[in-house]
């Protein structure tokens, strides 16, 4: 126990004594207990690992967005970085979900104690800019091998604002259509030719249900962040939900109304999907147990689905209406403004290493995320992987139809308005057009103060 902590102890008990003489005794007792307690883990933690004087220690927060041993994989990656870069030591810290991580970062930023770097949602960019919390990585000195053009542009475009690059894509997912090849064949279809259009999807689903090959034709989850998958439908219908900048959104459009009506009609008139709000977390299980022939879900679920399914699993582009279309999801690596300059530079070295082609391939294969580097897909590791898991190529190929995920100022709030609209329509509480009109009004009420 060093002097600083002893100091803290006296200060603390003084603070508590202010509560009244009657409690002072207890406060002293509490402080004593506190001392004993905080000494225990230190003793148990073993010898403190000492590094050379020139070592920059970085704090790095990361969320876990995909079920599986991701925290261990992340620690493995960070350990390898530390080994390869003796002058930098990254201390990685798991910080819950994306939302938890953003909250922890916001708290720390407001207390002027930010981490040096963190993985946050790609769509957190505007929120972090509004907080003045981050530095543009394009202002930092890039390594010789840094090549912005080698990042998948579908992912890279949401790092851009005010003509600068503010983050690097790291763990990125995108939705695809999963389908049951066995069921498709049983219903007289070709297992290698999944439906290409909205109409074909409905027709094939009907055939499958008529042939009693599966209980349901299709499942499109709408619980929680329903805006995410719904944005793909809107893009397919011809108009993205994102507006021309972060102060506008296109919720109340005929295209979005068409998309929402089509979604509602899957259950209501076509009866190929269970009615009501379908739970996001259960859809992969429903699909892998054969209850539904088609499922809209994230690439992040591929590993689990392949593990559980006892039939041949196919992945396909999400069917088009006027055009193919998808968005992206997942997290980028950000660097924080209040971190010391040498930490920022070290964090930038770290972020480049983490997203270099070799690491991008390794992370994608281990987790099910899409490789963020274009050259990753040319590597032997990736080629060997897709030879065994051809389902993983769909997401990469579909990226050419990708638009950035819905974002704006106060993006979490804006996204929620859209999710609420989708859920109200799917649950039958509102007509699609009315639900979207309300969402547009709610979003405009917030966004107009930024215009």
């Amino acid at each position, binding site marked *: 126990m060093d002097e*600083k*902590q002893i100091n*803290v102890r006296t*200060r603390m008990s003084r603070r*508590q004594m202010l*509560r*009244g003489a*009657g409690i002072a*005794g*207890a*406060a002293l*007792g*509490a402080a004593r*207990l*506190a001392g004993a*307690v*905080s000494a225990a*883990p230190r003793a*148990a*933690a073993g010898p403190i690992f000492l590094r050379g004087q020139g070592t920059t220690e970085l*704090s790095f*927060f990361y969320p*876990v*967005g*995909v*079920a*599986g*041993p*991701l925290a*261990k994989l992340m620690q493995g990656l960070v350990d390898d970085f530390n080994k390869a870069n003796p002058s930098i030591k990254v*201390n990685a810290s*798991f*910080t*819950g979900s*994306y939302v*938890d991580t953003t*909250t*922890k970062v916001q*708290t*720390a930023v*407001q*207390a002027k*104690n930010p981490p040096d770097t963190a993985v946050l949602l790609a769509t957190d960019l505007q929120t972090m800019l509004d907080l003045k919390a981050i530095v543009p990585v394009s202002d930092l000195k890039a390594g010789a091998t840094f090549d912005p053009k080698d990042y998948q542009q579908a992912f890279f475009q949401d790092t851009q604002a005010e003509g600068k690059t503010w983050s690097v894509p790291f763990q990125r997912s995108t939705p695809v259509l999963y389908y049951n090849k066995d069921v498709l064949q049983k219903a007289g279809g070709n297992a290698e030719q999944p439906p290409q259009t909205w109409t074909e999807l409905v027709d094939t689903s009907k055939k499958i249900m008529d042939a009693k090959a599966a209980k349901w034709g299709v499942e499109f989850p709408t619980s929680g962040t329903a805006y995410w998958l719904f944005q793909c439908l809107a893009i397919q219908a011809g108009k993205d939900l994102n507006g021309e900048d972060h102060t506008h959104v296109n919720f109340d459009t005929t295209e979005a109304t068409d998309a929402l009506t089509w979604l509602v009609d899957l259950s209501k008139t076509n009866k190929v999907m269970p009615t009501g709000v379908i739970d*996001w*977390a*259960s859809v992969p*299980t*429903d699909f*892998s*147990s054969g*209850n539904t022939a088609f499922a809209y879900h994230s690439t*992040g*679920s591929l*590993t*689990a*689905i392949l*593990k*559980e*399914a006892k039939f041949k699993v196919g992945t396909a582009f999400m069917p088009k209406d006027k055009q193919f279309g998808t968005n992206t999801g997942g997290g980028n690596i950000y660097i924080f403004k209040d971190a010391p300059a040498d930490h920022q530079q070290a964090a930038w070295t770290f972020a480049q290493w983490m997203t270099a082609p070799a690491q991008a391939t390794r992370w994608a294969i281990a987790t*099910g995320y899409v490789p963020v580097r274009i050259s990753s897909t040319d590597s032997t590791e990736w080629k060997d992987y897709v030879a065994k898991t051809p389902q993983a190529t769909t997401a990469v190929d579909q990226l050419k139809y990708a638009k950035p995920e819905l974002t704006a100022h106060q993006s979490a709030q804006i996204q929620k308005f859209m999710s609420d609209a989708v859920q109200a329509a799917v649950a039958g509480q509102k007509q699609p057009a009315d639900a979207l009109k309300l969402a547009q009004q709610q979003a405009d009420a917030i966004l107009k103060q930024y215009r």
Partner: protein
Amino acid sequence: MAHKPGRLVWNLVLVLLGLTWIIPLLWVAVTAFRSESDSIASSIIPHVWTLDTFRVAWDSAPFGRYYINTMIIAFGIIAVQIVTSVLAAYAFARMRFRGRELLFYLYLLQMMIPISALVIPNYITMKDLTLLDTLIAIMLPYFGSAMGTFFLRQSFRGIPIEYEESARIDGASLWRIIFQIYLPNAKSALLAFLLISFSYHWDDFFWPLIVTSSDTKRPLTVGLALFTQASESGAAWQLVSAATMLVIVPVLVLFLLFQRQFITGYAHSGLK
């Protein structure tokens, strides 16, 4: 005769309530023994019973360390809360001083403030005290409890003042009066409060997550969150169940043990 059908209906309601409570718990307990490749939608009972899922869950995070931390946090907090709440409750119940009622209501007001509103100020306090990323930072904001003080004060007020007066005549000190007259008579209120407080702190996730960053300082709930926060994939129900069992079994056992204490507490609290 007339009350018999009523009793039957009442028993039926109790059985139904019991079932709604036990079924999810049983489902989790059973699913925890399912292998990761055995889909939960394929049957209610696992095709093969296995401990593999527990092993995967256990290996995903330093759960051993998390157990120790959670116990230190939960027991540490309630130990301090007993002392602070009992003394404060006695002061509010029996001592006469100016502004006692006002102070008491001010004290109660803190119960109205949602914990989430206090996260940033508490974080800044911990930073100023250089206590960030320590177990003590997780515990410190809870050392005083308005709820505990309130429970005990109400309970102390119900104890006839004659007990205290006769003890005083016999020469008992204030400490002795509090701990030998008041506390035993308020046992049920104290136990009720401790159970609530213990389970709250055993389950607390958000504040520990915000205020700590190292694995060596974190509780079980952070380990559980590794499995339950997957927004970019479906849930791995088998792993979620196994990790949930790891977290709740000790507390379930503790509750089953304490439940008896709890009930006898009630039985003994009546005046002779």
